């Protein structure tokens, strides 16, 4: 019975030329794109998913998985590059690279785009419910305001939560200064009694149903929440924030490098990128794809903020061994009893 079921799934009229193993975040692609790609090039795509950069890193580091394309975030790309875990991408095989927004080429984590091509991007900011927050929101400091005690949702993510606290204090979110980190820890401990919960993706349901007044969220999710509940507004605070990128890379030792480059090139096609951005709802780094989106969304400052707002934002850097201090600070803060 099971065998028949297997045949049904793998049932294909012609034998595929080659295979391609793709490793991506869960629910982070329009699956019809994979089918189109398979038909167009006669390549069978094996598609797996992960939930955090760190999980993906462990799997690829173990060296036993032959993934040909993975989609990690900026600081993880930098880390993998340093540890010689990535193949060089031959830009001659990615003619569609010309479609990528000039602003998003040659970024600090990969200065020559030798190892990664942008997939999606966004910012982190504050989402607030207009019916509960009457004052203008423009600073991270509002998340430390006792007025909103037990109405604040923070991200249960070490790098993001420490990062915005550092920004609130006026430091860099890539600081390697232990004194600054300690100050951030104190601020986080101070904030703890005011926080309703440290959340992951459940932030969406909680904000849409009006359980909390303020939350720290990724811009892509903010668009979706604003669609579901128009009272929710998103702002990138004036102290600046995190600008993030997820990029497509080819892990070292890939046996299908040609097919991987074909796939990366295909994802940069403006029609495909449009389809994908339309499904996921995050911001695409390909202007021609953005131009095909709903005009409302194109004008949407959440998804596509002005350059002056972006200028205040920083991209996460790989901190190397200093990440141990971040781990320690996060653990000490988590262990603190209110």
């Amino acid at each position: 019975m099971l065998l028949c079921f297997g045949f049904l799934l793998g049932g294909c009229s012609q034998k595929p030329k080659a295979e391609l193993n793709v490793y991506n975040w869960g629910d982070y692609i329009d699956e019809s794109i994979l089918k189109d790609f398979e038909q167009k090039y006669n390549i069978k795509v094996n598609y797996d998913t992960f939930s955090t950069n760190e999980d993906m890193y462990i799997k690829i580091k173990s060296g036993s998985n032959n993934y040909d394309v993975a989609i990690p975030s900026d600081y993880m790309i930098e880390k993998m590059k340093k540890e010689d875990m990535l193949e060089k991408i031959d830009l001659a095989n990615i003619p569609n690279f010309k479609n990528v927004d000039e602003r998003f080429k040659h970024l600090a984590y990969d200065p020559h785009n030798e190892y990664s091509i942008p997939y999606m991007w966004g910012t982190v900011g504050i989402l607030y419910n207009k019916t509960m927050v009457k004052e203008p929101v423009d600073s991270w400091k509002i998340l430390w305001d006792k007025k909103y005690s037990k109405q604040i949702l923070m991200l249960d993510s070490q790098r993001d939560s420490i990062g915005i606290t550092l920004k609130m204090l006026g430091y860099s979110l890539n600081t390697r200064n232990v004194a600054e980190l300690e100050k951030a820890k104190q601020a986080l401990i101070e904030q703890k009694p005011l926080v309703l919960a440290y959340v992951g993706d459940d932030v969406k349901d909680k904000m849409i149903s009006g359980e909390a007044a303020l939350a720290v969220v990724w811009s892509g999710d903010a668009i979706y929440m604003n669609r579901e509940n128009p009272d929710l507004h998103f702002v990138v605070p004036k102290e600046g924030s995190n600008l993030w990128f997820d990029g497509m890379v080819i892990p070292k030792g890939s046996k299908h490098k040609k097919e991987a480059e074909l796939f990366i090139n295909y994802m940069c096609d403006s029609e495909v990128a449009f389809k994908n951005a339309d499904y996921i709802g995050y911001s695409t780094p390909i202007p021609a794809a953005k131009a095909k989106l709903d005009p409302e969304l194109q004008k949407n400052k959440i998804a596509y903020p002005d350059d002056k707002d972006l200028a205040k934002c920083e991209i996460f850097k790989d901190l190397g061994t200093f990440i141990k201090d971040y781990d320690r600070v996060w653990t000490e803060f988590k262990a603190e009893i209110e």
Partner: protein
Amino acid sequence: MVKKLLQKFYVGLIFFFLYAPIVVLIVFSFNNSKSRGHWDGFTLKWYLELLQDRQILMALYYTLAVAILSSLIATFLGVIAAIGIHNLNKLQRKIFLNLTYLPVVNPDIVTGISLMILFIFFSQFTNLKLGFLTLLLAHITFNVPYVILSVLPKLKQLNSNLYEAALDLGAPPFYALRKVILPEILPGVITGAILAFTLSLDDFVVSFFTTGSGVSNLSIAIYSMARRGINPKINALSTLMFIVVLLLLLLVNYRTSKENSAKENLI
């Protein structure tokens, strides 16, 4: 009278807590909106999308294949091991029982990573690749102790003279095992097999570390959606699985009640 009402209320409350989440999950599998926050009209689109979602269907296939195979193999190994342990002397039995308990109390993450390292170590000399086979081996590994621990108590209850009587009456050892011992310990074997099946069905941590590219089970597929939000297709799938399990249970109960009434008629 009051006591009866209280009892009924208490039982009702327990069932409410057990089944309310499942009811909510089923209701929201028909929700038009992707959000679990509010109701937005009735739709069957998630069921249609589920049937077209190759990734989730593949994950379902691998989940069932691994669960069925690993529980069958683990049951076979576990029953043999349990009979062996049962017939050891006291000191040996203590040693083996502790060895059996170790994987049960070991945290999943330790089991998962150590198995991954083991498989990678082996893959240097053989052409073993992380994938379906290693996933299956890992599941068998953590299932065997549970089967042993379900079967051992049944063996303890067994009258030790039974087997000898069978031998005295001329049964060859293996025949006696099959016809005398096995029927006696069958409830324990079935419990162990079902336990192994369930454990295999919802294991995430060990699976994540021991599988390779192209092979994911449902736990991995669902868990990886944690950052972006669980897609309602998963609600649709869970609803279907719940209904299938419910039907199976009803069928089993119906058959056993029929057998029981048939037995009563005989008497």
